[in-house]
């Protein structure tokens, strides 16, 4: 009962936040810029063209009315038309959102896969070099500019070692020579649906570097959280008992201690996903990844406000929903959360 009430309250609060977010995006994208009509009318507009644009964009209406129109359009998934390409933004989003989500999911998985074992190792060798190296690594990951890390990885793995592709989502031979049928726009899923293992493998190699860039910071957090949870649990009685029974060290660590230290994993998933959605702006430009980040960075240069607003809205809503789901999951795992 308490749980249900908690879920309901969190959901209502999230809905309010989404309304607030819509309002703020409206203000920043439609009210702050000096003259949206001139941008909409295209390069070197005449006075009449600007006037026509003002009418089309409904700029002369009072603010509350404009906000109502804006909110209604957003709610119905109508993000308007790009100033620059004149294409429907909703159509563009359908093509770009899956690419970004694919990257976010992959990098989250990578962060857990790297961070948790390192955290276990650091806890098992507390105070010794793996621990020290790990904690330095996690501090360094915070200080590393995302865009710089991306370039270093490109330099080392693509340029010097030549073992991973430099950029893009698929190799040219596959993207142009033998293209995949587009079903979901998730390359990995589309490759599996088409039964094309070559394309699947190719897509994975393209994912590694951008995903690794985005995974570095959350992996550091995962490491720290796992480490401190493990240190606490390694002192508990059942672990001591397992050790007295003569079980092997890996079995104690991974079989008996780690399952009890998985609490932070949920936190890391939320954080990593959020970080990937934000970092996408920087990483996608560098890896020529055809997702929302690259879409929005091109829009920035063109002052294409409807596109910037639409991407901000969509990503923020993903973010809010993700946080809501994590909160609910945490309450399900640990009912004390709902009571606090």
């Amino acid at each position, binding site marked *: 009962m308490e749980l249900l009430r908690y879920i309901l309250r969190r959901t209502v609060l999230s809905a309010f936040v989404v309304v607030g977010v819509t309002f703020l995006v409206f203000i920043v994208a439609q009210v702050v810029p000096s003259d949206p009509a001139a941008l909409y009318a295209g390069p070197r507009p005449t006075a009449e063209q600007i006037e026509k644009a003002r009418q089309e964009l409904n700029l002369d209406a009072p603010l509350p009315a404009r906000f109502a129109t804006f909110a209604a359009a957003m709610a119905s998934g109508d993000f308007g038309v790009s100033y620059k390409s004149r294409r429907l933004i909703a159509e563009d989003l359908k093509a770009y959102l899956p690419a970004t989500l694919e990257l976010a999911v992959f990098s989250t998985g990578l962060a857990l896969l790297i961070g948790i074992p390192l955290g276990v190792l650091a806890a098992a060798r507390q105070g010794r070099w793996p621990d020290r190296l790990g904690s330095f690594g996690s501090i360094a990951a915070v200080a590393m500019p995302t865009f710089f890390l991306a370039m270093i990885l490109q330099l080392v793995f693509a340029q010097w070692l030549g073992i991973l592709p430099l950029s893009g989502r698929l190799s040219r031979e596959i993207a142009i020579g033998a293209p995949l049928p587009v079903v979901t726009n998730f390359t990995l899923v589309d490759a599996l649906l088409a039964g094309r293992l070559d394309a699947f493998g190719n897509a994975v190699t393209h994912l590694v570097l951008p995903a690794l860039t985005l995974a570095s910071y959350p992996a550091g957090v995962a490491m720290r959280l796992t480490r401190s949870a493990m240190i606490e649990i390694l002192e508990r009685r059942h672990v001591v008992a397992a050790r007295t029974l003569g079980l092997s060290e890996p079995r104690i660590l991974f079989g008996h201690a780690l399952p009890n230290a998985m609490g932070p994993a949920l936190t890391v998933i939320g954080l990593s996903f959020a970080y990937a959605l934000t*970092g996408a702006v920087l990483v996608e430009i560098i890896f020529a990844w055809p997702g929302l980040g690259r879409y929005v960075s091109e829009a920035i240069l063109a002052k294409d406000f409807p596109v910037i607003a639409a991407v901000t809205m969509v990503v923020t809503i993903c973010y809010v929903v993700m946080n809501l789901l994590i909160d609910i999951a945490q309450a399900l795992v640990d009912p004390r959360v709902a009571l606090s």
Partner: protein
Amino acid sequence: MKKLVHRLGWPGTIALAVVLLFVFVGLFAPWIAPYPAQGAGAPNVLAKLAPPSADYWLGTDHLGRDILSRIIYGTRVSLTNGVLIVAFSLLIGLPVGLAAGYFGGWIDEALMRGTDVFLAFPALLLAVLMAAALGPGFLNSIIAVAVTWWPWYARLARAEVLVLRGQPYVEAARLAGVSHPRIIARHILPATGRPLTVQAALDVGPALLTAAALSFLGLGVLPPTADWGQMVDAGRKFFPARWWYSAMPGLTIFIVALAFSVLGDALRERKGGTVRAPA
């Protein structure tokens, strides 16, 4: 010196030294830079994209300007960026948090729900949207980041005030008929100041990183003013063949942010505070 090392540990002390070194370099850029004119933006077409050498320790950029001098001049922009973002954010966040915590009730509710809206955004995206709306430029990019930053201070200040509000000396002041603004200014603000200042100092590094990300996206200061993030972006066209162009300023951002981060870690072990996600 011994006392300092004792308080901060060796990593913390080294980090503090690095931060102070950059402050010094920023302050005296024209006297330290080997080519002050190029640092300020004057082209030097005879030495375009020269690799690191005895003349140009870190190489030159596409206009032949000495990268070391550009980095030294860029220190000014980056450090002021970091400090001003934090200062502007305190300027908004502190009053909001003080008012919410002190008055409580519907004022608290309204202010904090508003704060939630700002926190619901992925910070970099809101900053990008804001910077795009305001247009590029030094001050605009600082405002854009501060808009995403202040809610943290509002929350922190509110939490501090909630504790202080119930203190006997505050109640005594109120019973003695002291006005609300005066109680806030004279009795509450001084006590909330210290934890907030510590947090703010720790945040200069992350703030500087976010500003670098914005200028990497072309939303920071305008050329010819030297700026690290913008240099990394400009060098991308020549990367990896002329790696030094992007790598040197990129490495500089990393070193400065790392110094702030290590210093923050050393302080935090004694004073508490949280790490901010990087951009």
